[in-house]
């Protein structure tokens, strides 16, 4: 398998603090990779660099062979990278369906004039967009919730809706920032199953940040560990769990011993 995403020497500095320090990383097409590490290790900052919210001072980010550096966030989304957020950031006053429709924004091309005149082509496109948005909501398990205003959705559903919105842009790489945060075990299981289906049925490459070690260990094919912005370990879940540096910096002896410890922090 070829690497879909490849990071070389990526470094991001915030006023003297090196948030991401010379990180190299390769993510294979159709793989599921987890990024773990203590709070403030630079995980979300790395995601922000990938999606164009931050521009790394040093380094190269290649997606499918071409550089993402210097592109605007919407251009990066256009290339096929979509994401969700650690603290859910839906368009709160829009319905679930509208959220997904915004996700599809890039894939719609009817001109604004045609929207005013309601040309047949524009109508057809809108219709198709709504249909596929419904299909996406069904896919993540939000069937029947299309017209619910997103702030009124239960917490777990909001996380699912974020995934559906990200899918709207037809991504090849999906970045999930703590998808299971704040979920109870059964919701977490649902999310893990969804992640698998995304990869298996839609062929999307998954790159996720997660604190829940149970999720990380059971879902990922490879794991990368960040600490103080540096990558301190990388490998299969088993390798990482056995890594002395990881245990010291992050897991603590207890977790490493109990194989699948109880839910870690929410």
């Amino acid at each position, binding site marked *: 398998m070829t690497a879909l995403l490849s990071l070389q020497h990526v470094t991001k500095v915030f006023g003297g603090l090196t948030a991401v320090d010379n990180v190299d990383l390769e993510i294979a097409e159709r793989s599921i990779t987890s990024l773990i590490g203590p709070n403030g290790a630079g995980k979300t900052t790395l995601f922000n660099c990938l999606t164009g919210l931050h521009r790394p001072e040093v380094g190269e980010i290649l997606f499918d062979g071409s550089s993402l550096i210097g592109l605007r966030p919407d251009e990066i989304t256009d290339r096929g990278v979509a994401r969700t957020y650690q603290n859910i950031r839906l368009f*709160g*006053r*829009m319905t679930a369906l*509208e959220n997904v429709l915004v996700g599809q*924004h890039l894939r719609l091309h009817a001109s604004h004039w045609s929207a*005013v005149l309601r040309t047949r082509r524009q109508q057809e496109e809108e219709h198709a967009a709504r249909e596929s948005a419904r299909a996406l909501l069904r896919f993540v398990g939000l069937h029947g919730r299309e017209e619910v205003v997103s702030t009124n959705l239960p917490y777990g559903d909001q996380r699912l809706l974020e995934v559906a919105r990200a899918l709207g842009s037809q991504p090849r790489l999906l970045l999930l920032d703590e998808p299971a945060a704040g979920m109870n075990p059964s919701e977490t299981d649902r999310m893990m199953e969804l992640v698998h289906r995304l990869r298996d049925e839609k062929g999307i490459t998954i790159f996720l940040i997660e604190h829940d070690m149970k999720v990380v260990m059971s879902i990922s094919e490879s794991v990368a560990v960040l600490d103080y912005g540096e990558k301190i370990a990388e490998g299969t879940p088993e390798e990482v769990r056995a890594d002395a540096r990881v245990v010291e910096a992050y897991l603590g002896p207890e977790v490493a011993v109990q194989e699948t410890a109880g839910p870690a922090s929410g």
Partner: protein
Amino acid sequence: MALQSAAGSIRTGLIGFAFLSYLILIGIPGRIGGSALPVLALISALFFWLNLRREAAHHLARNPEQGLEGDEGKPGWEIGANADSDRSSLHALLTARPGTALALRGLLAGLTTGLLIAVVSGIFAAAMGNGVAIQPVLDKIVPINVAALIGVSPGQIVQAEVSFIRFLLQILLFAGAGTLAGLAVSAGGSNLTTAARSGFLAAHVSGPTLGSVGRFAGIALPFVLLAYIAWIGLPGVTAFGTNEGTVRLLLTLIATGSGLFAVRLSRPGREQRIVAVLLGLGVVSMPFILDQFQNSVMGLVFIFVMMGLGLNIVVGYAGLLDLGYVAFFAIGAYTYAFLSAPFSSPYISGLLILMGVSPDSPLLGYWMALPVAMLTAAIGGVLLGIPVLRLRGDYLAIVTLGFGEIIRLFMLNLGELTNGPRGILEISQPALFGVSPAGVTFGLLSSQGWIFLLALVSSALVAFVAIRLNSSRLGRAWFAMQEDEDVAEATGVHLVRTKLLAFAIGATFAGMAGQLYAARQINIFPENFTLFVSIDALALIIVGGIGSPAGIVLGALALKGLPEVLRGVDEYRIVTFAALLVIMMIVRPAGILPSARRRTQGTDPDEAGFDDSGELMEGLVSEEQVAASPGLANGKEEVR
């Protein structure tokens, strides 16, 4: 409990006194003359009514179980400040009979007010009777007012004798007003939307169309009442009965506004369509029926509807707070003026020659000039948009405000280009098929009726475009951007393009409005384009209900139309308008006719600038809203 409520009534009385003192200070009793006292008592009754009702509703919201079982269900276990233990027979009586309690509270509040008014006016009258001069400016207004309050004309001031009977009369009048208010509140029950209830009844008795009319009457009645009070109460004797045209204008405004309500409240589908068509026919026939003055007011109203619709795209849809919107209005107006008025500056004539237009045989007609004005305004919109792309919130507001002022100052000071403060005169009137209606009657249409008709058609067109755009992917992108700019961008919205489109489209509409405004005014001056135009436009979309075109029409009727009705009492016009603006925001912050989407806005934690703790406050907010919003909100829910 009894003690607390007594303190509350006295507080109500004190506020009532402060309020009436204000009216005395700004000179209302002097205007009304001898009848001032009963009128003030009536006003204070209205005030007590509002206050008592709010408190009653608030009380109910806090203790839903009360009224059913009182506090009896629980033993008195509190200690300290919250001691409820004095269960006197009076207290028992009051909790058992909320109506009596309210009336008593009204009485107490009225007594407080009356006593204070009596004491103060007594002091003034006594001072005047003894020939004591009161400080400079104040001595002109206040004594006359106070004298009017106790039924003495200005000429009689010197002999004003301070009679005990008059004091007593004052106190009794206000006490009666308070009691009346208390009784009225209790009679109306907890919801107190008797008017809306009669509408509900009508809906059941008659067919659907009549029903919606009934419902709209129920909703609109408070407004009619308010307008009536504003009209009767404020202008006083001087304006009363002077101008029949004003009354008709008022009725026109109310009819249009309540028609909108009727559309909104009728059942979706056939009923709504019928009401909408009826309303449309009614409005389109107006230019042919109304006289010159009424038409000119309605024309102005609909020019501001266009402004509102344009600004709504920028503020309501895209969430960009623009306080310099007048700039585009001015650009549209001046562009048309340059193209159609005899005034010529060397720069402009040069430009016209370049464009292939002969500068001395003027001039581009209205229709030829329209695209030019729109394009110029749109370019202005983009030129403003580019530098402010990175700014957010209040920074954006102040920069746009600065931009608007800069444009105005340029118009004022660039004499060679714009004729400075002398303005541009004799702007030609729009013609149709080569016939210009200026001055003469154009068929059935007066010249102002023609402008009104044009404004009507243009605003319909603008509303159509705005609504269509808003329901397209562009509208979704705008709204997403308003909700969370970063996420919108990461979701694929091209921020620069989307923002600039909002600015440009908004500016284009303002340009259209500006051109029609110039045609309406015939002569324009820089002072037509002050910051207040921007504020008016912003206020009308917010008062009407941001994001909702119907609300914008309603807002324009209320904010641009009603003040014209009050023109007879110019000084009071702005004060009333300003006070209403504040009250409106407190009572109904989402506007009169909010769009469905924004109805949740009042409780949106982000909007409140409160982070997530805003969520915590949510309960508080809606509770207060329930308590504070009078008839309208409750009534609406009830009839639905």
